């Protein structure tokens, strides 16, 4: 019962470990090579990209990176992106968790219909929805206002988040819920004190997905924000793009830098994911 495995010769264990490493490294290289190319590309100037696409930069042009880091528009956009992403994520996870809870663990008439209704949010192209959405936002005076981006992002993030959370909320065994009710727990109490902590990996997952989606959103901030002070990072890329040509190298540098915070969020949230390893679904 204490996790005793089949006794295995040490050599096999070590071989297995090495094999896994090899597989992991091979797969990782397919992922890393384009990324490394992007990072290195930022150290070249744009015409070097066409003459020396994949070699090391020659000469190295650190200005692409340092200029961006030194410009205060980058930091302002970084702040805007962070603020909007965090606000969006908190609101969407909160609203979705509440809704997914009843969709997962209560039975009532029209439940599946309601769930499908939410799912339809995934089925319509955003590019067509944006015009009526824009008119609505203007009506409510939400243009040039962070809420004009946050609220629609929350609304459009609800479908995927609810779908994923509902799936995980279902997997909590019914015995736990029964025990809680016998102990006199209200639905909200069960939700808040038992369900949510147990669903931490799932919450971390949907949070990461919400942050990434908000981080890269281009169309919505583009039409909502006229004031460059409100611009988010994806909009900031435009300063390197002109009518007929783009400074691709600077764009690469910019995007690499813009990606780092989002990856940072993931690294942090990811520790929540693996904490589930030791928790397990059946608590004492």
């Amino acid at each position, binding site marked *: 019962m204490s996790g005793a495995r089949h006794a295995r010769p040490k050599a096999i264990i070590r071989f297995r470990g090495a094999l896994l490493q090899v597989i992991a490294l091979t797969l990782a290289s397919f992922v890393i090579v384009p990324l490394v190319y992007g990072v290195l590309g930022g150290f070249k100037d744009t015409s070097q990209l066409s003459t020396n696409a*994949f070699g090391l930069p020659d000469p190295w042009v650190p200005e692409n990176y340092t200029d961006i880091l030194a410009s205060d528009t980058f930091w302002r956009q970084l702040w805007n992106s962070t603020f909007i992403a965090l606000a969006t994520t908190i609101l969407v996870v909160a609203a979705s968790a509440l809704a997914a809870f009843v969709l997962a663990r209560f039975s009532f008439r029209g439940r599946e219909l309601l769930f499908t209704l939410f799912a339809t949010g995934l089925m*319509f192209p955003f590019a067509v929805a944006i015009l009526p959405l824009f008119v609505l936002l203007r009506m409510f005076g939400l243009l040039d206002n962070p809420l004009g981006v946050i609220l629609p992002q929350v609304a459009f993030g609800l479908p995927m988040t609810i779908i994923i959370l509902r799936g995980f909320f279902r997997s909590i065994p019914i015995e736990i819920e029964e025990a809680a009710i016998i102990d006199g727990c209200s639905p909200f109490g069960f939700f808040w004190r038992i369900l949510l902590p147990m669903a931490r990996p799932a919450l971390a997952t949907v949070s990461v997905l919400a942050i990434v989606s908000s981080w890269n959103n281009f169309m919505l901030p583009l039409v909502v924000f006229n004031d460059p002070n409100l611009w988010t990072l994806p909009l900031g890329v435009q300063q390197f793009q002109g009518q007929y040509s783009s400074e691709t190298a600077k764009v690469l540098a910019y995007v690499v830098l813009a990606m780092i915070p989002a990856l940072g969020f993931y690294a942090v949230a990811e520790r929540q994911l693996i904490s589930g390893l030791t928790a397990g679904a059946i608590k004492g």
Partner: protein
Amino acid sequence: MNAIRPRSRRARLRGSLTILAFILPALALFCMLVLTPIIVGFYTSLFKWNGLGGLPRDFVGLDNYTRLFADPVFYGDLWHTVVLVVLSLVIQLPLALGIALLLNQRLRGRAFYRVVFFAPYVLSEAITAVLFMLILSPSVGLANQILGIVGLDGLEWFADQSTVLLSLFLVITWKYFGLHMILYLTGRQAIPREIIEAAQIDGGNAWQVFRRVTLPLLGPTIRISIFLSVIGTIQLFDLVWIITEGGPSHASETLAVTMYQFGFKRFQVGYASAISVVMFLLSLVFALGYQRYVMRRDLEGATTVLREQR
């Protein structure tokens, strides 16, 4: 899932109010900001409209739809979608699952790998497109350079009608497998360690444990992953638009790309809305069918599986 105990009328009312209270924030936001635009989209699909000058006036009924169904490009789009869906289900999802399981092992540098494998998903579509247009460039691309080293002829990748869809699939897989990987990772975490260990003790080797215990327990997660993947493929737009614009000669065009062409470049917004409605209906039909036949077990009681194992 059934209620735990029989309820009095008042208790049921309170229950309904509780349900309403939980659902309301999401529902309100959703109806206002998502449903309303969709309904407007349905409405405008019945008109011939260039988007300017107030509400559409030129009512054409279902003409936009008949025009769409008579256009060979539409059928090309459908075919491309089918191809991409099948490829995703057969290649991308198993790949993501494999990687998720790999990252769940005791592996040195596991945290590093997790960040690395998720990084493509974090990268924006625009820059993914730029990177791969360069890597798969027939003239200066890394891919052809590598092929050249091993003595193979370079491919045309995005520049040839016969290879463009597969090349696109390569990029799509690279970009999006991280989403499914993270789903499978989370799903895997939710499986109690005790169950796996019990199965191992019962004398299964790794593959048997996987097939008989892990895989079925991952079932709900896999089914969600497939659901999101199919719907996502039907809606696929950004990467395709930036890399190929649907070309060459419509060889890589998807429904969303056609919609964008007609709506935003040709300013035939009514027609584009019709295309959006068709995309919507396709997704809806799939979703309804999928829920009924595939996810039904998940809906009855997620603990059914665990229960049966007792």
